[in-house]
């Protein structure tokens, strides 16, 4: 069903066609705009948004003392509503010590290891997602702020390459769907532009909260391409490119998506 639709798409596009190019900044639309009215209402209503349960969990975890240092996030960062304002909007961010960008989930685990002397939280674990959702929520409404500065250039390019290169059994690139054919239908659902404005999201398909990396792995699976493990450098590069591609768009965390 999906393979057939994708092959049809490839036939439409022509075998050797290069990407038509990036979406002009003014024409960018969040996945929110491709959703039905009721799903949008679910996201807009904090009293009905299922992701808010995770945000509340995150709020509790923020106060919890952990690790052999017996410290909580609050012990260093105080009130997240102040200290975390704008933080999620500029991740993935360059980590000078590691010489590469890290995403928000990695950042939480770095803090846990270095400051709390606590074990890292597993990727996609309830706790890590709850903290990411809580921190992300503090940036809601703020514009994504990733600048193409010198230090991130090579990683941004690596992410851009991943986005534009054809890959997998279907020989599809991300760009072919999300730059060139957004708004058209694939297996009954509209193709969004692919801006990660609301992560972690409550995806109705998952029936739970999940990260951008989980969503990217879903995509790669759907494309019949090699999927990267959670935390892989390739994943972070792609996340970086996608966030840069969405620069200036408002954060919606925690978003709901179909």
């Amino acid at each position: 069903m999906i393979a057939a639709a994708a092959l049809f798409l490839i036939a439409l596009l022509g075998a050797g066609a290069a990407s038509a190019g990036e979406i002009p900044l003014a024409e960018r639309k969040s996945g929110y705009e491709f959703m039905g009215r009721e799903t949008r209402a679910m996201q807009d209503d904090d009293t009905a948004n299922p992701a808010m349960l995770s945000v509340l969990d995150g709020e509790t975890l923020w106060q919890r003392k952990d690790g052999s240092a017996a410290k909580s996030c609050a012990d260093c960062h105080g009130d997240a509503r102040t200290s975390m304002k704008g933080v999620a909007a500029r991740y993935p961010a360059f980590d000078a010590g590691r010489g590469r960008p890290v995403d928000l989930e990695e950042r939480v685990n770095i803090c846990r290891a270095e400051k709390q002397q606590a074990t890292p939280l597993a990727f996609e674990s309830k706790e890590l997602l709850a903290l990411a959702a809580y921190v992300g929520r503090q940036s809601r409404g703020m514009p994504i702020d990733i600048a193409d500065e010198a230090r991130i250039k090579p990683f941004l390019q690596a992410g851009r390459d991943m986005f534009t290169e054809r890959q997998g059994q279907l020989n599809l690139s991300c760009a072919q769907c999300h730059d060139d054919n957004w708004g058209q239908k694939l297996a009954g659902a509209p193709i969004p532009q692919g801006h990660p404005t609301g992560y972690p999201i409550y995806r109705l398909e998952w029936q739970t909260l999940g990260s951008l990396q989980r969503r990217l792995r879903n995509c790669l699976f759907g494309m019949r391409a090699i999927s990267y493990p959670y935390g892989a450098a390739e994943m972070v590069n792609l996340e970086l490119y996608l966030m840069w591609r969405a620069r200036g768009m408002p954060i919606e965390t925690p978003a709901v998506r179909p």
Partner: protein
Amino acid sequence: MARALINAPAKAKRGEAIEIKTMISHMMETGFRPDSTGRPIARDIITELVCKYNGEEIFRAELFPAIAANPFLAFFTVATESGTLSFEWTGDNGFSATESVNITVE
């Protein structure tokens, strides 16, 4: 305990019908989903939500596997007097969760 979220007005006028929104984290495993060997994963759902207003039952819902994960349930009740709205969820495998909110009725 599972995370529960209640949204109800903190203040209301006597006789006013107020909307109460409830949400609780729970996978609501249907009992129809197969595991990797093809056998159905055992059902594990919330089966009932009871709301009491100052101890008196004002709402009761019987839930089935067709209710979506992280059950959301919104309903109305007439604000009669100040006091406490209490909520109790029960379900398979001895699941139990409670929550309560106060209301001031003028």
